[in-house]
């Protein structure tokens, strides 16, 4: 006889229970966006310029390789400069989008809080009105 814990319904229940736990844990940790995005953006901006990479050479063979390095740098510079411009534009766009997103999330949170308070106040008013009506009708 099969272990009932391996039945598909039991497996699905277990997956849902664990997923709910993971979601709760993530909510408790707070939003991922504001923690990881600045770090990721900083890393991205650091690595914008591929020309900043140094060609390192062992001293013993340096004399032979230096002219080759110079030639390589001269050949690659226009391509790498173009890549650097592209990377910089991308990084800048991402920063703008991330900042916009964070601002929008802030506005949405404030709006949700405001609406929550408003709904709460309306509910209280309604409950008061219902109690008054009950008192008046004697029920």
């Amino acid at each position, binding site marked *: 006889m099969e272990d009932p*814990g391996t039945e*598909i319904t039991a*497996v699905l229940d*277990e997956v*849902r229970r*664990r*997923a709910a736990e*993971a979601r709760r844990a993530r909510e408790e940790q707070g939003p991922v966006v504001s923690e990881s995005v600045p770090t990721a953006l900083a890393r991205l901006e650091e690595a914008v310029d591929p020309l900043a990479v140094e060609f390192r050479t062992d001293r013993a063979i340096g004399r032979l390789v230096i002219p080759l390095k110079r030639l390589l740098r001269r050949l690659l510079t226009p391509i790498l400069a173009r890549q650097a411009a592209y990377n910089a534009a991308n990084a800048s766009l991402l920063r703008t989008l991330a900042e916009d997103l964070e601002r929008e999330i802030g506005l949405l949170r404030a709006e949700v809080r405001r609406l929550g308070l408003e709904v709460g106040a309306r509910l209280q008013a309604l409950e008061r009105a219902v109690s008054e009506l009950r008192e008046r009708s004697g029920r």
Partner: protein
Amino acid sequence: MRLAFVVPWFPDGGGAEIQARETVLRLREAGHDVEVLTSCARSYFADWSVNAFPPGLERWRDVPVRRFPVLPVDRTLLRALATWVERGGVLPPADEEALIAQLLRVPALPEWVAAHAADYDFFLFTPYLSAVAVFGVAACPARAVLVPCLHDEPFAYLTPVRAMFRAAAGVLCFTEAERALALALYDLDPDRVLVTGAGVDPPPAVAAGEVDGDGYLVAVGRREPGKNFPLLLEWFRAYRRRRADGFRLVLVGHDPIRPPLGDEPGIVDAGMLDEDAKARTIATATALCQLSVRESFSRVLMEGWRLGTPAIVHAGCAVTRLHCLESGGGIPVADAAEFGAAVDLLREQPAVRRALGGRGRAYVTRRYAWPVVVREIEAALERLRGGH
């Protein structure tokens, strides 16, 4: 029965063409007179405007294959219209017709079908989305049977597609979920929309499926947004952020990954593997991931199950979700949290992994072994012939 399978490409192509090719061979083994009508183009992945094969009659593994020449496709027009539809845009009728007309231009094929319709019991058109199918069905509606490989995508809503489904004498579906979709979309007579299943070969001989080392998930197939490939990467990355150990995602497939992965830890691009290596990779995986929501059958899922590997599928795909629930061999997941929970459960409880894999294997054998599917196709065609 005398049958002609009508496919855009042969013998290479996507899942639909491969399924058609194998079905042709099995129906011939069962004693039916089956031939193939197709284009001179190489495959779905090659240039649709190039005649890679000579026109006329040839033989492939003793199967008569009749080829018809292709005319150049207007790629700019095709891309523009297809992208518009793919993004949910609506086209005027003339543009819908223009889009269909560019989905492989083989005008001589439907002309030939119209002239020879009486010589065959049925013409089986597969898949639904090609000019070959739309114009071919119109050329012989009373003998046209669609094997559509239908899934819920914007192209399924085009007016010429609807007209094709309504004109065909019958529709053979791989699954109940595909049948339900066809009935819902096109308001068809239920008696002529039949489920046959799709045949799956027995598994190749590989070592027993014990999880390899730290374990890994495997995903097989096309690396494109339509197959939810980016979502798989996103969910796996979320998993690794929570639990960054030696567990990996192994990707098997031939097309390039965009954007490239670089040296991202935990994700391995195994590229194209031969059948033996692919079978070994699948058999020793913790689970096979199939997150595509555009499936009419999912051969990939069956490849995993026949080797005893459990599956993780997207809960938003009616076809794969039902396969999992009916077989008890896989876990449908709706988001990254459920994906992570399913992976953890399968890693931590080998008994669950083995039980799910075993049930999947039994399901494939019971439902989709070739003798079973050939009998279903024969019975379905006999029913449709009764309606001639």
